[in-house]
């Protein structure tokens, strides 16, 4: 009964042929390789070509419907299945992943066919015609397929238009944009180091005065910049009376530390004479 109805539809469908002829088919690059596939039959030696030419089972099915008037409303199920199984065997050696996708399509087609062959009474109310779902998918794919072709036709940088490339003069220094550092990042960085190292180092770490260390740098800096008099500078000149007692002590401690590390040398040519300091 269904078969009968469908056959009628098929006859009516021939009126749509004119429309189909007008469809653009330029996308089929591998057409020469596919000699009149009346159904889903693909010559085995053309298999690889087809895998490259079609973007998948939907693309292949679209092609067959348009070009060969392959009728999904009346699927020749047995030969399709046989052929598909044959391809899948062949594809295993080429691209297993793709083979699986084509196999899924074959399964869908087979399912559609089998459902159509079932007596009508077994079709439940809410059940959609399986062919409708396939047609919906094919249409959705078709839309995207042409959208992709149109996208390819859009003017495109490099291929269709060139962008202008102008340099700044070479002597213009690019202002280097330096990374930002937060002071607390510095603190946490040091704490990390200390945490890492305290396990084996805490016995050796003596209490150090930060101000002494700073003063050591400052003294070295003064001595470095002082190039007169063979680099010697008067001992007294290193002290800043206005810093008060604490400042003097810190400077003195710093000098002692520097002497210990042989970073500076002190020279006193005669007893109670002038003490000169220079970087060693």
């Amino acid at each position, binding site marked *: 009964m269904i078969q009968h109805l469908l056959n009628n*539809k098929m006859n009516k469908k021939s009126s749509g042929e004119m429309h189909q002829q007008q469809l653009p088919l330029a996308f089929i690059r591998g057409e020469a390789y596919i000699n009149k596939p009346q159904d889903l039959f693909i010559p085995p030696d053309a298999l690889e070509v087809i895998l490259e030419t079609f*973007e998948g*089972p939907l693309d292949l099915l679209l092609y067959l419907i348009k070009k060969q008037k392959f009728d999904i409303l009346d699927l020749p199920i047995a030969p399709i299945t046989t052929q598909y199984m044959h391809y899948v065997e062949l594809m295993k050696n080429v691209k297993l992943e793709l083979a699986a996708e084509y196999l899924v399509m074959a399964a869908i087609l087979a399912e559609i066919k089998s459902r159509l062959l079932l007596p009508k009474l077994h079709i439940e109310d809410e059940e959609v*015609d399986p062919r409708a779902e396939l047609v919906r998918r094919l*249409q959705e794919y078709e839309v*995207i397929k042409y959208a*992709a072709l149109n996208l390819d036709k859009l003017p495109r940088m490099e291929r269709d238009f060139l962008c202008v*490339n102008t340099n700044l003069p070479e002597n213009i220094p690019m202002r280097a944009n330096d990374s930002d550092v937060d002071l607390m990042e510095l603190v946490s960085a040091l704490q990390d180091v200390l945490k890492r190292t305290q396990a084996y180092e805490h016995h050796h770490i003596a209490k150090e005065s930060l101000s002494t260390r700073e003063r050591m740098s400052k003294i070295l800096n003064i001595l470095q910049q002082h190039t007169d008099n063979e680099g010697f500078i008067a001992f007294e000149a290193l002290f800043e009376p206005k810093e008060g007692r604490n400042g003097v002590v810190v400077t003195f401690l710093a000098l002692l530390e520097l002497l210990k590390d042989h970073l500076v040398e002190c020279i006193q040519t005669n007893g109670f004479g002038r003490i000169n300091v220079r970087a060693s």
Partner: protein
Amino acid sequence: MTSLSKQKLIKLIEGAIFASSSPLSLMKIKQQLLVEYTVSHQQVLNAIAEISLVYKDRAINLVEVASGYRFQVVDSIASDIAVLFQEKAPKYSRAILETLALIAYRQPITRGEIEDVRGVSVSSHLIKTLLERDWIKEVGHKEVPGRPALLATTKEFLDYFSLKSLAQLPQLMPLSESSLTDIEMQLANSESEESTQKRETETK
């Protein structure tokens, strides 16, 4: 804040668009280039319009794309000039174009949804290529099992195709032009006939 002569304003904007390797946005012009000057939005637009006019008949044109303004060699001589550059523009496969089209027209979309429409799997390599070209980006995750990434196109994609917005993408093919319309109609007809039949059977 200092004011700026019209001439100097035009010079600054023109020079900045020339020197910029990617399209220069209005925001960048106002907030970075002209940050130290008192210039109104309208003054900037007027200056751009005037620059555009100056280059109207020259070898290059000022064009506006998604992320801003840039100069382009005019189409009429582009192919003559292309001979100077040995490198051929890359050709993109249908797989890439179809995937890109799906992302462009159906964004945000997951890889799985792309695969559903195309009927084939989409390789990670392909997605990576599009990500590396800066044509697509992940804009979030779909709240379904596996939380797949949602993909969308970028401004760079629009720039590359000289588009100002997604609305300028070519229209999708109307369904009426689909080669499957006949089949769909037949199906619809057969369904209605079937359902009539069915009702008849039921009433029996």
